[in-house]
């Protein structure tokens, strides 16, 4: 291999990697918009009347869970074991977290700690 060829290969490799990355990163979102169904599932928890509903949510690995606060009072959704932590959610504000590992994730509202719930990821 000549010196010049080595240089070309050195430049081409990062470019190829970048293209591959773009391809993989881009494909799920393209799919999602094409058939109206995300490849990874979504699930919702509604905060209403100082209650997380449903209190136990069971989802497959890879699910993105979105909490929405429907109360006139701010709440949070914070993992008891420090896995996830929302900011303070005022009325109608949302927080999402994607669960990539199976397990049981208890959480609570740090402002009203009597409010508890859990996400079971299978």
């Amino acid at each position, binding site marked *: 291999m000549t010196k010049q060829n080595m240089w070309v290969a050195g430049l081409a490799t990062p470019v190829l990697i970048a293209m591959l990355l773009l391809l993989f990163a881009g494909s799920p979102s393209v799919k999602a918009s094409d058939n109206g169904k995300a490849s990874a599932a979504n699930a919702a928890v509604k905060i209403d*009347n*100082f*209650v997380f509903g449903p209190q136990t949510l069971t989802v497959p690995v890879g699910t993105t869970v979105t909490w929405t606060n429907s*109360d*006139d*009072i*701010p709440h949070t959704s914070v993992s*008891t074991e420090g896995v996830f932590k929302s*900011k*303070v959610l*005022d*009325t109608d504000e949302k927080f999402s977290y994607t669960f990539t590992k199976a397990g049981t994730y*208890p*959480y*609570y509202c*740090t*402002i*009203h*700690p*009597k409010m*508890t719930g859990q996400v079971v990821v299978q």
Partner: protein
Amino acid sequence: MPDKKLDLIDQNLQDLNNDGVDRRGFLKCMAWAGTGLVWTMSGGIPVSRAFAKSSGKNKDAAKGADFSFVQISDSHIGFSKPANPDVTATLQTAINKINAMPHTPDFIIHTGDMSQLSKPSEFDTLDQVVKGASTKQIYFVPGEHDMLSDNGEQYLQRYGKGTKGSGWSSFDHKGVHFVGLVNVANLKAGGMGSLGHEQLEWLEDDLKGRSASTPIVLFAHIPLWTIYPDWGWGTDDSEQVLSYVKRFGSVTVLNGHIHQIMQKIEGKVSFHTAMSTAFPQPAPGTAPSAGPMKVPAEQLQQVLGITDVNYVVSGGSLAIVDSPLGG
């Protein structure tokens, strides 16, 4: 009507003395809210009478008082939902009411939830309004709404100068020992309010060596007695506090958080919660949740209010007067 009210109150106080607070007691308590009440502690025996709305009749309560102070609570500056679209205006009304008192209070205690979301602009507005009070000395303890996103750092910078830990402190005023406690920090999942080990140790030490005849006033945001666990209306480690103050002859506990008047007497300890200056909350168990309660606009000022506490040296007692803003 006034006699009926008086009977109701006396009956209720008896109930409280006999079997603590039950649900029936709560519902009766709600009959007081909005009408106000004069409540005097004398040698551990509560004497109560319906609070006359005219300030002229009210002067008796202050007669011979060595000093008085005012408690305000739960201003929730920044809240703008239907339960009260203008909480700044109702706080202003509360300050106006303090300024119109026949006797100028020595200081004001704010028992927390000054802000709705711990925003600097909300604290700024609160500061601006309370600056207009005839009384310049104000003591604060935080509510959970004042320590939302930064572990209370901003609160401590603004209101916690000279305090310890998450904002607790004590001071003496004309022979009465006041202790401001913080039970809204580092709350645990599934629990209620909490003081924590460090604060309890400090409190024990703070009270140690004080004469049992020193009147003690404890104030904190969440009630230091269990009112309604389902809604988190209580403090998990409050029993320990009560064990420290048991030996004192007169202990008054002032709280906020539940946006309504509740009272309980346990031995020589009298517990009292204040009305909010912002919006009312439902009586325990009477609504799906503790969220803000919407009342007709013309009734709002009857369920918001301030609490005037008079210390009478001769009687060695504290008289607590709750006045609705619209009274």
